[in-house]
């Protein structure tokens, strides 16, 4: 095995999967929201819902396309770079991922074509059905990915035969308690991502005083969804922490920044961990809280990272900081969603420009939270691919050369950078152009409580700000 090839393969996997996760996490939430919009449109017949639907469908399609093409890479990468892992765990991981393809990808691909090109070819109820099927497909895909990843985090229901990991009990794998806290955690993260992107777009339009009717729908629905879901998400985040505490004590110690056993344990809020001296610099900590969070008691002993042989320890820096960034983003989103929803209900949000600015600028938060959450989970699992049983160093393709790995890393980085740049640029362009029908803009003196149905008369002339080219 070539040590450089191993490092390069890890970098490549981390890079390609991080790139990929951004798009599905956005489209899972967006697909659900599109389904709701289409259902509302069919139920009420209000043109604004249709406008908002058509608008977000365009953005959805760009993000979905990027998700699809970057996802194909994942199906191959296990084989190209992680030959030994693929060979040994194929009877479990391969099977789970084949379920993903069978149950999810065909739903998505077939009905997505209808969503984009088929409105005139199918009856309205079937169009709604197609939207729901795309949403179901994206959700199922997330489910199987989480089954697979949860098995890698906390392997259950398997036996080892001739070096292969064979499923001894599929029900243990599918009903693993770890899975059933992590899957909701991921799903909620996706919904919140969709909600904040929609709310941010609404806030942006309100700030620049355009697309008033659509902007109100986006802002209200996005904020309300966020206000309900973020607290639930924090709860599931806590449950996820509990499983890490019980199943992956080394990862838990790394996240907590705890080098040595403590009883009762304090909670490190922020610090700079120093791996060489195995201590924290500039630590701010709260006594006893660590035991309370870890074990719900005031005097429990909590395990430190140095309890584990150094060959079995994850690095501390990345999980420690990634986790804090994730939680920070979550708390910020909670604040924005609650304050925003409150002012929205009171009808005062449109006058509050600083808050609108904050909501507009909040759109990266859910993405950052998702990425750092995954960094915490995956880096914290090291040095294992399958926790406790198969090491990362033993998983890589044994004959992979550093040269080939360098070439592939460079190719993936450049291709992804290329399509990402253009993808983001086109999404920005679509957002700036706004909903196509351009419903009547609210008069300058409009009261924020004005019934929205009044502004729902479509006009033929496009608003002046729809720019033609780039």
């Amino acid at each position, binding site marked *: 095995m070539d040590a450089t090839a191993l490092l390069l393969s890890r970098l490549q996997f981390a890079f390609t999967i991080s790139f990929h996760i951004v798009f599905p996490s956005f489209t899972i939430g967006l697909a659900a929201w599109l389904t709701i919009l289409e259902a509302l449109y069919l139920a009420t017949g209000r043109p604004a819902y249709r406008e908002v639907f058509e608008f977000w469908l365009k953005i959805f399609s760009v993000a979905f*396309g*990027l998700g699809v093409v970057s996802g*194909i*890479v994942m199906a*191959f990468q296990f084989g190209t770079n992680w030959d030994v892992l693929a060979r040994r765990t194929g009877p479990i991981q391969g099977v789970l991922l084949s379920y993903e*393809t069978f149950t999810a990808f*065909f739903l998505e691909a077939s009905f997505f074509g209808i969503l984009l*090109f088929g409105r005139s070819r199918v009856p309205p109820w079937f169009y709604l059905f197609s939207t729901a099927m795309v949403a179901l497909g994206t959700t199922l895909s997330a489910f199987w990915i989480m089954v697979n990843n949860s098995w890698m985090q906390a392997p259950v229901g398997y036996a080892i035969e001739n070096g292969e990991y064979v499923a001894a009990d599929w029900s243990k794998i599918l009903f693993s308690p770890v899975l059933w806290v992590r899957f909701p955690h991921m799903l909620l993260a996706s919904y919140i991502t969709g909600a904040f992107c929609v709310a941010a777009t609404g806030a942006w339009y309100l700030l620049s005083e355009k697309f008033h009717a659509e902007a109100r729908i986006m802002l209200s629905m996005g904020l309300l969804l966020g206000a309900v879901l973020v607290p639930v998400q924090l709860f599931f985040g806590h449950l996820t922490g509990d499983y890490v505490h019980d199943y992956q004590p080394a990862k838990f110690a790394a996240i907590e920044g705890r080098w040595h056993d403590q009883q009762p344990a304090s909670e490190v809020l922020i610090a700079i961990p120093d791996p060489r001296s195995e201590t924290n610099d500039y630590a701010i900590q709260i006594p006893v809280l660590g035991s309370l969070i870890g074990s719900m008691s005031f005097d429990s002993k909590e395990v430190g990272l140095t309890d584990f042989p150094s060959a079995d320890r994850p690095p501390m820096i990345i999980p420690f900081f990634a986790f804090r960034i994730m939680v920070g983003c979550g708390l910020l989103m909670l604040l924005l969603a609650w304050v925003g929803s409150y002012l929205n209900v009171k009808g005062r949000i449109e006058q509050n420009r600083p808050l609108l600015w904050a909501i507009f600028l909040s759109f990266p938060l859910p993405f950052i939270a998702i990425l750092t959450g995954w960094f915490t989970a995956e880096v914290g699992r090291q040095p294992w691919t399958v926790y406790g049983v198969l090491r990362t160093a033993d998983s890589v393709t044994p004959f992979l050369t550093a040269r080939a790995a360098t070439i592939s890393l460079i190719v993936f980085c450049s291709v992804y950078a290329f399509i990402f740049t253009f993808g983001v640029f086109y999404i920005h362009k679509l957002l700036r152009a706004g909903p196509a029908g351009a419903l009547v803009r609210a008069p300058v003196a409009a009261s924020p409580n004005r019934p929205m149905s009044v502004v729902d008369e479509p006009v033929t002339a496009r608003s002046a700000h729809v720019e033609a080219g780039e």
Partner: protein
Amino acid sequence: MAIFWVCVLAVSILFYVLLDGFDLGVGILFGFTRNEQRRREMLAAVAPLWDGNETWLIVAGVVLWGAFPVVYATLFSAFYLPLLVMLAGLILRGVAFEFRNKTEHMRWIWDLSFAAGSFVAAFVQGLMVGALVEGLPISDGQYAGGEFGWLSPFSLLCGVGLCLGYTLLGVCWLVRKCADEVRDAAYRLIPPLSIGLLLFLIVVFAYALGENLRIMSRWLERPYLLVFPAIGIVAAIVLAASVRRRRDEPPYYMVVLIFAAAFGTLAISFWPYMIPFTITIEDAAAPHSSLAFMFWGEGLFVFPLMLVYTAISYAVFRGKVRPASVNY
């Protein structure tokens, strides 16, 4: 169980070749026209369907991984660089569908990436099949050929051959889906492409005889294999007749038959090996618990559903592309 999954795998690969084959072929053809209206019609003929088509490739990949992990790991790590190139091609052509209508100044970038990506993906797929037919260097169940073990005149030739084949599929698809100018241009391309493909097959056959490839001995052991070339010849004759009479529907199905015959030939010449002459189906099959779990869920229930979805989307987008409604 293992046999069931080999069949699913074979069906998936065949579907992939027949379906993504035509949209890759249209992509290659796309590079040879400058006319924007024609390009739009060509794209409209594949745009709602390409994503589903490409999904069959992933199906083949994951069935291979779940049901035959050894083959998945061995082949994919052996084809490290070709797969990289293929993936880059598929990525670039895939995003082109979404990106090209978002811009005018930079449309040429996506036109280029659509055509070049399609070509590269098709070429590499042919190359990998060729390398498999010729035989990959494998020892102790591990690939042992180095970074370029798949590279040979024969595998390159097969790359060219598959490009020709996919282009022919694409041309026939355009005949089916388009009207007027595009259709007529497509009709004109069928004879030269068919002759090119025929020449390719003759050269491959001669090469295989000349190099005394082990796979050729299969033909002597299994004379019933000759039924496949016979099907191919009949299909080619019907193809020629329907082109002459300008019948839009049959050509695509005839090329499908030719491909199916070629695929059947290959599959049965491989049997019972998955990687010729080193790893058999039995060696490669995952443990029973995996095969059974796959069978009772996705095999028995979801696989038919997948066929239904595919049928639905082809039914919704049946008939000719209407140039007026082309929104690409």
